[in-house]
């Protein structure tokens, strides 16, 4: 089984909401100071899923990431978890694209990697929450795509996926190769062990520039965009919380209950 996992470096989505800032002039997010970037949440689940499949079937896992200023500590995390190879599309020409141009660049790199049975992505990136690159790559490669997976099983040349739906799950069977996107209902990503971390330190990523992929720069980055960002803004949340105070927590609980009756909420 040869597996490709797409992982993206993002600003830490779990940084406190109060640290989130937008520069209105450039329509861009100001990275929070002192909070290092991380791998996008669901991409770590995708790495975990890949390792679990490989543990049963054997084979090779390649992680693929597109971006700039990719911190080696961040993008090497899949290696330390058990991924075999890391390919970076790291060049200014790749960035500031949209879901379409990112899908296209990743698709081109996947074709160059060539030998794949399964491609895994996160359900949506933790910054733009677009949810398009998985189905996008599947479309470009002409593969079946199953989104929101919580469990994967490979049996011979068939794949069985449990897909999360609002009131339960679907069990779907697919041919291979296929593309699957992972949701957090899948078992949590493992912590890298010391051996994994040492291996990752020694392993150097392969970096592909647009020319290595024979990519027409008109199709990637800002010039490849089909969508345009008009405005990025923060919602105003009015704060008007009435705090019920008391000497003890027990009394506060009582008073809160009474309060809800007084204001006719109950």
């Amino acid at each position: 089984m040869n597996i490709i996992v797409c992982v993206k470096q993002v600003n830490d989505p779990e940084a406190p909401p109060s640290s989130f800032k937008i520069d209105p002039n450039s329509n861009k997010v100001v990275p929070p100071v002192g909070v290092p970037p991380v791998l996008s949440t669901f991409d770590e689940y995708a790495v975990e899923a890949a390792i679990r499949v490989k543990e049963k079937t054997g084979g090779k896992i390649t992680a693929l990431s597109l971006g700039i200023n990719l911190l080696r500590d961040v993008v090497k995390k899949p290696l330390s978890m058990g991924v075999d190879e890391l390919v970076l599309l790291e060049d200014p020409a790749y960035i500031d694209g949209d879901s379409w141009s990112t899908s296209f660049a990743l698709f081109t790199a996947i074709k160059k990697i060539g030998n794949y049975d399964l491609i895994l992505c996160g359900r949506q990136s933790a910054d733009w929450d677009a949810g398009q690159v998985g189905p996008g790559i599947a479309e470009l490669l002409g593969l079946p795509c199953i989104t929101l997976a919580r469990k994967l099983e490979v049996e011979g040349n068939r794949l069985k996926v449990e897909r999360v739906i609002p009131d339960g799950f679907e069990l779907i069977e697919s041919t291979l190769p296929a593309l699957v996107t992972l949701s957090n209902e899948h078992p949590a990503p493992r912590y890298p062990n010391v051996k994994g971390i040492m291996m990752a330190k020694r392993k150097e990523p392969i970096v592909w520039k647009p020319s290595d992929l024979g990519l027409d720069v008109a199709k990637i980055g800002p010039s490849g965009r089909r969508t345009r960002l008009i405005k990025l803004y923060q919602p105003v949340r009015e704060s008007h919380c009435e705090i019920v105070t008391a000497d003890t927590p027990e009394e506060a609980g009582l008073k809160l209950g009474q309060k809800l009756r007084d204001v006719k909420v109950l």
Partner: protein
Amino acid sequence: MSEYQGVLVFCEVFEGRLTSVSLELLGTGRRLAGELKTSFQAMLLGSPLDKAPDEAIICGAEKVYVADDPGLKDSLTDSYLPVMEKIIKQVCPAVVLMGQTNMGRDLIPRLAYRSNSAAVLDCVALAIDGDTKRLLMTKPVFGGNAYAVQICETNPQFATIRAKSMAPAIRDESRKGEIIKLQADLDLSRVQTRLIERKTEIAGIKLEDARVIVCGGRGIGSAEGFKQLEELARVLKGAVGASRPACDNKWASDNVQIGLTGKIVSPELYIAVALSGSSQHLSGCSGSKVIVAINKDAEANIFKVAHYGIVADWKKAWPSFAGKVKELMK
């Protein structure tokens, strides 16, 4: 004039009826078609369709395309893609809309790229730009910390809409329209996925329908803690929800997660216990009418959106709070 004209919405049908997001699509599509002074058409997806095509006309569609084929019963994207692709080629619409549903999230990006265009998913507002007549698509980004307004510069312009974010269609029984039957022409040899089973795992009141939700976070600390929340939810005839860490820890089941990647709810009363109010969580509950917060940290973000609250250890405050509520509800 562009060769791309009109608004096309894909409406899902369940057990012969239009789903609620389909009614919102019909309302939104008709409004946008009105602003663009263009035609408005719907395609219905599902099987059987029963009276749904007539209902779509009552809800404002001028033309309704149907492909009632038993092969489309399982709502698998794989079988729907070619049928939808065909209709898009035939209609050549300027705008294509669908709900951000199990199907919409898969189908719309694929159809957009297949049409050499692009999409914006999970929109909470759609409007027409007065000058360019392009569709302005607003969606939450950065876990709900921000909103982005985007346009699609290619045609057709594709979008999915978030359930309950836009006004449903207003029915008018006097409306007339045309129903056009299509051959699905499913090529089963090209279908690569198969639905083995679909299972419901929800017991009791659905979160989306609950008038009261008691939601616990990481600070609840255990499954036993959630039992206490459940007890009060029962008294209030409501349901229990949970933040993501509480689900990840298996204190509550995965399908009661509330937030950006869980359920989006808007009950009359939302009681948030021992959860911090991350932007991803608030994305799922900020539409609640009244939010009550119990948190031991006065600086917790939840107090920024709550209407009433106490700063306390929930373990100490809960018995008296729950007891009082029970007494009042008698």
